[in-house]
């Protein structure tokens, strides 16, 4: 699936730096997919990925060989994204605010409580899953994705997102439950929470 770029001639010319570059370039697809998930725009995603590579190669000596290069690159990418947003965004939704936490913790209506996950799995269309993911507040979407799709450890995700482990776990937990609610139909709670949250933050910043 992933094509490795041809390596340089072996021998004295090949260095640790070549191996680093080769491996970094094999991770282009998942990095771009992550950038798209964060920015939601192709041009911004492309920009973010290039920035990430520039930084990764500038600071490549800080990478400890033998550790997880993918996690390291993801951390750079997420940091770069956060710094950009800090510079520009004022519409940031505070996803860890009490209101959102409370909304996400509310048990759903009784009608969906007994929905077996197997039925959900069988009946969920790919398009439904994509829509449910898109409707999640960004911080939940990213935490859940990093855990359940990319299968990073909590500590690695904490590093990437720049938040404590406890926050990582609570975002994963709520993200998974919101996803379930959205897919099991009816209350559309993922979008409900997103709207509620942005309303609250507008009030808060007014």
């Amino acid at each position, binding site marked *: 699936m992933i094509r490795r770029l041809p390596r340089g001639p072996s021998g004295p010319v090949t260095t640790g730096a070549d191996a680093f570059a080769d491996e970094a370039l094999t991770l282009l697809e998942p990095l*771009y997919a992550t950038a798209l998930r964060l920015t939601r725009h192709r041009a911004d995603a492309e920009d973010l990925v290039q920035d990430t590579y520039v930084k990764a190669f500038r600071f490549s000596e800080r990478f400890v060989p033998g550790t997880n290069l993918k996690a390291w690159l993801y951390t750079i990418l997420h940091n770069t994204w956060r710094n950009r947003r800090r510079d520009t965004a004022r519409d940031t939704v505070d996803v860890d605010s009490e209101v959102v936490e409370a909304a996400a913790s509310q048990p759903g209506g009784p009608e969906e409580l007994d929905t077996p*996950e197997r039925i959900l799995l069988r009946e969920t269309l790919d398009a439904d*899953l994509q829509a449910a993911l898109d409707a999640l507040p960004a911080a939940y979407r990213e935490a859940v994705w990093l855990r359940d799709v990319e299968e990073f450890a909590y500590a690695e995700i904490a590093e990437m997102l720049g938040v404590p482990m406890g926050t990582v776990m609570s975002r994963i937990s709520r993200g*998974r439950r919101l996803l379930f609610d959205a897919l099991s139909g009816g209350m559309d709670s993922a979008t409900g929470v997103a709207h509620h949250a942005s309303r609250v933050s507008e009030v808060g910043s007014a």
Partner: protein
Amino acid sequence: MKEKCRQAVSRLTPFLDEALPAEERAEVARHLDACPPCRQSAAKEEGGKTVLRERAAHLPTEPLPPGLRTRCAAIAERARRRALRSR
């Protein structure tokens, strides 16, 4: 929310991911047995986790924009030359 419930809910994720030490795991399991609302939360979380894990591979992926690989390879190459020069 009761303190017991708060504690259980805060450990649901590592519980479902089988990342809790045995003792804590047993504690959460005992609470879930005794508490329907928390059991319900656990079922939802498990459901969301399962769907995503089993379905994510089917989601369509955007192809890399043309030229991105070449540009990133060029970034790598410039870094390599810089490193050689400074040796």
